[in-house]
């Protein structure tokens, strides 16, 4: 056990911090607060280019695939620092989809997709959920039928975030309608500009754009199927573990509590100081202690990954804990800041540019997204303690 960064890790963190000091400009932060990650403006595009130059998209990829071959702890440190700084880090294409291609893809899949991903040129929208297949994902009905050298795809996907920005759909489809539901699913890479794709925006409560995407007789080459047909379920459930690990870094939580501590010490627009209230002080200390635990959960998960384990329970615990903590931070902040905490981001008097009222609206996503916390609690009971499955 070692709770301190070693010399190499310290140097790594310093390298990241100095990169962020140079590249995270006020324009970038402004763009991020206005548009999030889903509609990147010029500053975000420029930032991603510099990130690609560093080779940091392929941070944990093996050297043979053009990556830097760094371990999960190094990746974790990078994600933490990026989230703390509010910078757009390597996204799901890099952290989740690419490793799946490396592990399960055909030789052609690897040649065709990995290099463009490493250069930041290939960006996917993840097409899993459907109107009737959400938490019960294996019930998905979008189908792909073989026709000569092509797959013909029909159906629709929902909560398809980033479709407006992606170059490809990473699409889960049914390729064997007669097999048991978990055994007839495949993953196909579909260029987003293929004829027959329609994107309908859905705007969330947090102003974040997600989409419903329709596929009508969309044709892609047979070779775009990832790995082998009908093995998609085992590929993507592996990826969900990685995705949860990547999604649940506590860097943004550490930043939120640090920002709140700073706000609470100074006078609000009405002249009061939150820390003069003993309740507020107790709440701040509690949030600080909880963020500490969240950070440790992430470091433990990445340490276990580095030791060659698949820490399903640890990552699941971390996902539930961080997502619920995010909501509690936003709730505590909006109570502590009073009416001024509700001000919209473009109001000049809004504390921290309205960050906390926005966080209040964005926090629900990660409680039900990437595996709803209720199902994940089942996962903990069943995987950690062998409690019985009951029909899932």
């Amino acid at each position, binding site marked *: 056990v070692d709770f301190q*960064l070693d010399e190499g890790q310290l140097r790594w963190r310093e390298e990241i911090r100095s990169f962020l000091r140079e590249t995270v400009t006020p324009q970038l932060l402004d763009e991020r607060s206005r548009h999030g990650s889903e509609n990147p403006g010029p500053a975000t595009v420029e930032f991603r280019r510099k990130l690609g130059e560093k080779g940091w998209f392929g941070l944990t990829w093996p050297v043979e695939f053009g990556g830097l071959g760094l371990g999960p702890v190094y990746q974790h440190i990078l994600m933490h620092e990026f989230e703390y700084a509010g910078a757009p880090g390597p996204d799901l294409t890099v952290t989740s989809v690419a490793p799946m291609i490396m592990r399960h893809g055909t030789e052609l899949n690897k040649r065709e997709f990995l290099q463009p991903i490493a250069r930041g040129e290939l960006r996917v929208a993840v097409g899993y959920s459907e109107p009737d297949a959400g938490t019960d994902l294996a019930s998905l009905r979008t189908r792909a039928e073989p026709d000569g050298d092509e797959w013909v795809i029909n159906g629709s996907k929902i909560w398809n975030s980033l479709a407006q920005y992606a170059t490809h759909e990473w699409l889960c489809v049914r390729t064997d309608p007669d097999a048991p539901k978990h055994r007839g699913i495949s993953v196909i890479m579909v260029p987003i500009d293929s004829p027959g794709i329609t994107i309908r925006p859905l705007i969330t409560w947090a102003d974040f754009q997600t989409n419903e995407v329709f596929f009508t007789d969309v044709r892609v080459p047979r070779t775009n199927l990832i790995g082998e047909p009908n093995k998609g379920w085992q590929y993507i459930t592996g990826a969900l573990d990685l995705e949860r690990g990547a999604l649940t870094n506590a860097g943004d939580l550490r930043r939120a509590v640090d920002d709140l501590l700073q706000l*609470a010490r100074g006078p609000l627009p009405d002249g009061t100081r939150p820390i003069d209230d003993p309740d507020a002080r107790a709440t701040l*200390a509690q949030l600080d202690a909880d963020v500490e635990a969240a950070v440790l959960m992430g470091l433990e998960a990445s340490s276990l990954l580095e030791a060659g384990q698949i820490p399903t329970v640890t990552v699941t615990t971390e996902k539930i*804990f961080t997502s619920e903590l995010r909501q509690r931070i936003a709730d505590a902040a909006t109570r502590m800041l009073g009416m001024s905490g509700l001000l919209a981001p473009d109001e000049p008097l809004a504390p921290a540019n309205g960050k906390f009222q926005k966080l209040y609206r964005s926090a629900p996503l990660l409680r039900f997204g990437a595996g709803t916390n209720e199902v994940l609690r089942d996962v903990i*009971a069943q995987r950690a303690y062998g409690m*019985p499955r009951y029909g899932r």
Partner: protein
Amino acid sequence: MRIVKTAEHQEFQRSLRDMLADSCSPALVRSLKQPDSNGFPARLWEALRAAGVFGLALDKEHGGEDATLYELGLFFEEGGRALCPSVVYTTLQAGVALRRLGGPEHAECLTALASGELIGTTALWNPSDAADLRPTLSARPIGGGWALDGTLPFVQNAELADVLLTTATTGGTDGPARMIGLFLRRPEPGWSVRPLSSLAGDKQSHVTFDDFRVPAADLLTGHDGRGVRQDDLRWTANAVLALQCMDMVGGAACVIDQTVAYVKMREQFGRPIASFQAAQHLVADMRITLDAARLTATQAIWWVSRGETAMRQVAIAKMHCSEAYKWITLNSHQLQGGMGYVRDTDLHLWSERAKLTEVLGGSAGTARHWLQHELGLTGAR
């Protein structure tokens, strides 16, 4: 940064767990709580001596094992599982305290503590707030030594202990009031001890001193001969708190294991109650709070073990451990229903330990005050 236990540490813990399973049964724990028991587990004590546990974190020159407080923390984690009797803990804590606060003249006593020949206890801080280091005893200089007056509240195992480490405030003729550390040997016929009947049956007493004479040689002089300093005392308090947190983590994990075994076996409506989602979610929540407690406690003992005061890490660990252990026992009562509620079954033994350790040294609320202070949200204490 590497939060993974080494194979050696896992093996070490397994051997401790086997030893405690053999010599520290719930039946023993139950018998020691009885009012007519003196709280001394003779067979367990011999097993611990044979395993070198008493000298684990003490130096080779005193017959110790030269391991660190982190390894001693692993013992506390296993001790928490088995509800290791408090007299073992207070003796280990006395060793940790004497190593930090004593001078060369206490080498012999350290050696005796390291081998388990002496039983020890400490009263070095407010038992309800370990960050409060103000002595409750006063000391008057008299004939080259000291006369002590006052009461120490809530001393564990005072009736059994051969030695007691405590502090006093000086007054009288030798200049301004200051704190002195004292290494007291049990006199014949003994201290004035009033045993207290308390929730966990853990041998708490009030110890009263009335013109109690202490030779000058029994002062704790510190390694540089300048006496006990606040920062040494603060480190000692935090070391003991971090060890206690490790005990709480082990106890909480053991309660979850017992709970899961019960709900898998117990059937209602024709199926094990473990198959109900409501039961699974309660267990998952136990696990989540346990993970937070385990990680923060391990972090605290690791930093203290490196000689750091680690006030922030200790405060955070105590906040998590106090609430986690308590709620895990209370939710275990919920899941085990009547079967966990009767005194014939053992769950209440852990529930009592959880409540005791929640409050001992300071509750989560107390620890939150320590953290507020660390965060600069409140002024100097």
